[in-house]
């Protein structure tokens, strides 16, 4: 029984299409994301990686195609449904709650999801402990009382990750979490992704750095102009001629 569930893809899309006034960002795309694995999505700029994540998190409605979560086809997602399906994400261009403290940026996603109970809920110790845990994991605990707006670029990226970790979701969509990070921070994020995998979580990672991808991914999916160019194990995919060309052609 357990085993059978493991085989279902955590996420899948079938014949997904999305375009922006003429630009075909996702072109009849079908793919699936393996449960409990780290899947890297690569592809040149503008190949539709972020658009795919935005569609999977309900920010964009697909014009066509279906989305399947844990083997069940879901109705068109609203952003606020995504969490209920056990999905969380980070944003490529960080979207923090700027005029709130680092601690509040995390506490806020731990709030009860219905309004009246949330009105009666104040300082909840379990929430505080959970927030402390994810902020410690991202080296941000010392910064907890600072406004998010005052963080450095790398710290902002880490806070995005901390915020998504706090949700304790099953599926994590990370849009270029390593981009622009100092090596020390890269190690922190690397460790976090590894431990998510150890906990059996599913991770989708958009990334450009080939070395990182080789080291961390179980699967690689290559997008080009909104279509699936190649997929498979890192060694296999990254040596494929068409993939190399798509990148060098840039």
């Amino acid at each position, binding site marked *: 029984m357990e085993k059978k569930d493991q085989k279902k893809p955590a996420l899948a899309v079938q014949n997904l299409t999305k375009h922006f006034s003429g630009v075909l960002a996702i072109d009849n795309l079908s793919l699936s994301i393996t449960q409990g694995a780290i899947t890297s999505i690569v592809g040149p700029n503008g190949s539709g990686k972020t658009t795919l994540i935005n569609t999977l998190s309900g920010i964009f409605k697909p014009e066509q195609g279906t989305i399947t979560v844990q083997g069940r086809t879901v109705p068109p997602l609203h952003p*606020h449904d995504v*969490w209920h399906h056990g999905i969380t994400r980070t944003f490529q261009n960080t979207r*923090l*709650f700027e005029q709130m403290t680092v601690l509040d940026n995390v506490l*806020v996603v731990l*709030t009860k999801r219905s*309004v009246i109970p949330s*009105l009666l809920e104040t300082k909840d110790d379990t929430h505080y402990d959970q927030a402390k845990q994810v902020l410690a994991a991202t080296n941000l605990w010392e910064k907890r009382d600072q406004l998010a707006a005052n963080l450095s670029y790398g710290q902002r990226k880490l806070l995005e990750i901390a915020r998504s970790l706090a*949700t304790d979701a099953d599926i994590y969509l990370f849009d270029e979490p390593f981009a622009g990070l100092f090596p020390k921070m890269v190690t922190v994020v690397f460790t976090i992704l590894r431990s998510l995998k150890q906990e059996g979580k599913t991770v989708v990672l958009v990334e450009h750095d080939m070395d990182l991808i080789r080291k961390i991914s179980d699967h690689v999916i290559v997008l080009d102009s909104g279509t699936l160019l190649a997929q498979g194990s890192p060694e296999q995919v990254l040596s494929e001629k068409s993939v190399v060309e798509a990148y060098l052609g840039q």
Partner: protein
Amino acid sequence: MEYFLHLITLFAIYAILGLSLNLVVGYTGLLSATHAAFYGIGAYATALLLTVSGLNFFFAVFLGIILTSLIALSIGSVLSKFRDDYYALGSIGFCIITFSIFLNWQDLTRGPLGISGIPRPDIFGLSFSSSILFALLALIALGVTFLACRGIVRSSFGRVLKAIREDEGAIQVFGYRTHTYKLLVFVISAAMASVAGSLFATYVTYIDPSTFTILESVFILAIIILGGLANLRGSLIGALILILIPELLRFAGFPAEIAGQTRELVYGLMLLVLMLRRPQGLLGEYKL
């Protein structure tokens, strides 16, 4: 002494309006100009209930709250779909429409003639006709409002409101139906404005539409912008300063006719200096 109590009462009424508007504008980041409308609906509801049906004061206040909340619920469910400029424009529209209903539904509101002879509150035989008792009543209402607002902004609900202000799209992804939050805080805020209206109507014992124009909304906005958005004590200070300025001008020896115009000038100058020097307001933590 009478005069001092008068100022206290006015301060309490405007502080309630400021605190409640701050929930929507300062904490949730929705630039709403509806407040004068809800203030007016509360005032008219109480005035009519007291003069026509001779109801008990508390009961009239309570019915005013219910009526205002229901109206806020329907207006708010439309407004909550918008944000930024569109929200502000919609709220201005609502305020103008409400004003013209006060003015033109003559059978109910007596139009420009207004409603006079509104009785002072009479609670269990204790009449609040004296200035000191009324000032006390207004201060108690202010105290309750302050505590309620503080409870809201310190709750998890309040934290979500701030997140909506910062990035509504981002907080939605974490499972929050922001529409509901915006709607609920709007209704709570309107209900509080309604209480201020009830106090105002029974204090001055005469109301007409001219009090509840869009300019009154702007005045309440000025209170919270001056005091500081997303800061409750700031709203108290803002109300205090804007209530005291005309009085100070009068003390400074400006004749009454000029004092009125000077007041507008001072408000204008003050907001200008504020925008340039301290855009977050005196105690505010957030810039609009």
